[in-house]
């Protein structure tokens, strides 16, 4: 029992990541508002950033600069990777928001169910044009 | 011999000439006379080339041609062998006849899109030549599909709703069977045998056995949907919407013959007669073919439209070939080859006659053809000759094929089949002869039905304005009609010719 408790505690970063990931994913799937979807997507992505950053941390580790005093180094690579991933995330968010704005302009709404109704009427118009 | 013409070159020419023809016809779109002269010239040249190849072959010079590697280890290749030569000869000779006939028919009917018609005809002929001289299964398959595609516009020619429906059935059945059964069969063969070259004695010996061989054989037979084995026969009646020259061409020369030719090739060069009879791989197909044969004959009996009746007759007659191959005996195969020749001549005549009757009188149904024979004696005479050949009464071409098939059946111990043939012969008498009999012996339609105006003697004949069909239509029919009888005298020679490749 104690073992399991320790196991759970020792992996707290993974639990946090999983929780965030699940929440973010759930928001993307369940919310009809496009902006909320993007927020969810961001949470989802951030959870992954956390995963990388947390596994890059080494207890008592320092920055990998050779000074001759320390022997334990944290791995800088995950942080660098995540820097790139953050940039990608920002770009994604920007495009997503831009699309949401354009959708709002042409559909007059950013609620998914209302957009679907409009799309369906458009499809029926197409079918009638045949 | 012609200077500079090697057998290889001639072999290439047989494939290129029709293609060239299509090109010339396309260019001469605006000039019907040039277009049709070109068609005729190309057809004649093609037939000449095939005859030249035949003479060379008889003199001992074979030819082989490898073009490109379609798949690694599987080139597109051609070679000259007896059965292919016979098929090519029949097809190219009949192409001349059918071209002459088409010119008469199409002009008298004044159909649109005649250029497209002749182009597709030439392309179909090129595909037929490719099938005839294919050196391996993949080449045959390639041209088999080309034939399907190039004849699709022909079936569709009228572009009416009925034509669309017919063409749709035509192409979907042929493509479906070929892709669903034929292609897997070929891949399977390639996988187990490592080759697809047509080899006398077959390539499968020792590579496959038992029920698997039977399944593979069935895949080939059903896959060659052009052979119209039941239950994949219904494209044939559906394709009847095409103009008569097309029907004649499809049913007698190119398409169905390509189907049964494929079946023959599979039986002889892929499985091999010996292998087939050892494994009994083809035994159950005998029954499929026999059932197909009998049912088709009965259906033919019930059809009133002449072309539909002929179509079902074709299904029955093609089943003869399938049956002959399935018997897995040398004589059965010989019978199949002879049937291919005899039926081609006979059926083309019957169709041309049907077309001639339609051109002259506008009648399609047999019940309306009473007495027409007396007005169109040549047409009905040719019809009678061809009918005799189809039925198999000596001395006509069909007699030999039936004879060899029966010997084949006896050889492989399938005496029941002899009974089947007798039954089917009786049936074919029943569905073919009444047409002629009505034509010659019953009074003209209208002689009795029409209330005669009192005190006036009006000739119903002049009323109907029925005369013999145009010369362009009748002469080809008469020629092939006579040929279908004369073929009787070369039957044994053909048998001699093909025997060497059938194995011991």
């Amino acid at each position: 029992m104690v073992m399991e408790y320790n196991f759970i505690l020792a992996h707290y970063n993974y639990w946090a990541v999983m929780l965030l990931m699940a929440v973010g994913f759930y928001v993307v799937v369940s919310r009809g508002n496009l902006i909320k979807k993007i927020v969810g997507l961001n949470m989802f992505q951030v959870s992954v950033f956390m995963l990388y950053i947390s596994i890059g941390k080494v207890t008592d580790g320092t920055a990998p600069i050779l000074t001759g005093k320390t022997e334990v180094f944290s791995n800088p690579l995950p942080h660098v990777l995540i820097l790139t991933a953050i940039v990608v995330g920002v770009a994604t968010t920007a495009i997503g928001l831009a699309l949401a704005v354009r959708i709002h302009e042409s559909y007059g709404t950013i609620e998914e169910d209302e957009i679907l109704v409009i799309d369906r009427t458009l499809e029926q118009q197409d079918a009638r044009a045949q | 011999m012609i200077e500079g013409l090697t057998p290889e070159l001639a072999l290439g020419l047989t494939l290129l000439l029709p293609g060239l023809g299509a090109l010339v016809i396309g260019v001469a779109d605006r000039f019907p006379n040039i277009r049709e002269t070109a068609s005729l010239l190309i057809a004649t040249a093609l037939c000449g080339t095939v005859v030249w190849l035949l003479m060379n072959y008889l003199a001992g010079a074979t030819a082989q041609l490898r073009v490109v590697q379609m798949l690694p280890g599987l080139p597109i290749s051609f070679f000259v062998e007896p059965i292919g030569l016979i098929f090519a000869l029949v097809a190219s000779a009949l192409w001349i006849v059918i071209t002459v006939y088409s010119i008469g028919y199409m002009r008298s009917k004044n159909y649109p899109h005649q250029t497209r018609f002749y182009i597709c005809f030439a392309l179909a002929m090129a595909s037929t030549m490719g099938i005839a001289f294919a050196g391996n299964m993949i080449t045959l398959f390639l041209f088999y599909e080309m034939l399907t595609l190039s004849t699709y516009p022909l079936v569709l020619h009228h572009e009416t709703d009925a034509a669309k429906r017919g063409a749709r059935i035509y192409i979907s059945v042929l493509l479906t069977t070929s892709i669903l059964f034929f292609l897997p069969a070929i891949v399977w063969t390639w996988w187990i045998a490592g080759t697809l070259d047509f080899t006398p004695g077959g390539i499968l010996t020792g590579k496959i056995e038992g029920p698997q061989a039977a399944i593979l054989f069935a895949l080939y037979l059903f896959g060659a949907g052009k052979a119209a084995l039941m239950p994949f026969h219904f494209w044939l009646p559906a394709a009847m919407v095409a103009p008569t020259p097309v029907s004649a061409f499809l049913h007698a020369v190119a398409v169905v013959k390509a189907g049964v030719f494929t079946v023959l090739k599979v039986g002889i060069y892929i499985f091999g007669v010996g292998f087939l009879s050892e494994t009994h791989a083809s035994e159950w197909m005998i029954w499929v073919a026999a059932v197909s044969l009998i049912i088709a004959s009965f259906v033919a009996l019930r059809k009133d439209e002449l072309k539909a009746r002929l179509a079902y007759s074709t299904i029955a007659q093609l089943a003869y070939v399938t049956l002959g191959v399935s018997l897995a005996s040398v004589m059965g195969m010989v019978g199949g080859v002879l049937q291919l020749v005899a039926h081609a001549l006979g059926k083309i005549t019957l169709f041309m006659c049907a077309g001639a009757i339609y051109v002259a009188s506008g009648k399609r149904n047999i019940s309306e053809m009473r007495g027409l024979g007396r007005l169109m004696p040549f047409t009905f005479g040719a019809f009678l000759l061809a009918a005799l050949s189809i039925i198999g009464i000596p001395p006509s071409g069909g007699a030999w094929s039936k004879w060899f098939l029966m010997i084949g059946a006896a050889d492989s111990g399938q005496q029941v089949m002899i009974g089947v043939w007798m039954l089917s012969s009786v049936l074919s008498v029943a569905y073919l002869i009444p047409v002629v009999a009505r034509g010659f012996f019953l009074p003209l339609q209208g002689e009795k039905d029409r209330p005669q105006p009192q005190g006036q003697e009006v000739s119903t004949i002049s009323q109907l304005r029925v005369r013999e069909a145009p010369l362009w239509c009748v002469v080809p029919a008469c020629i092939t009609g006579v040929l279908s009888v004369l073929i009787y005298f070369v039957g044994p020679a053909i048998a001699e010719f093909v025997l060497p490749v059938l194995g011991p």
Partner: protein
Amino acid sequence: MRHHIILRIAAQLLIPPILLFALYVQFHGDFGPGGGFQAGVIFAAGLVLYGLVYGVAEIHRVAPTHVAMKMMAIGLLIYIGVGFAGLGLGGKYLDYNVLLHDPMAGQHLGIFLVELGVGITVASTMLVIYQCFSEHQSRDLADDEW
């Protein structure tokens, strides 16, 4: 925003240090934490703050979108150009050692230029994103809506 004197003054005080800090992060990047990405974002944040406080029209005047878009491309071209320079001087792509006669100096120059390119691109991209979105606003917000 004209009446929000506190905000305006605070912004006036804040913006120059923000921009300066961005430059520090940019050019100190190869010695300490920092680099083009961070510097670019900080620099853009300063400009965005300016735009927020002084209005959309003003930020367009100070940093026109079309210029910013050019800068995006130019920054990227600097980055790729450094890589090609390495190629041209006989090294591999993005090989800084060959940029100058001394490999150490080459490394410095290479990373400096690359980070500069990144910084320019990131800053101008963030700015363009802000400008594009703010353009879509139909009216300026009234004071009491803040």
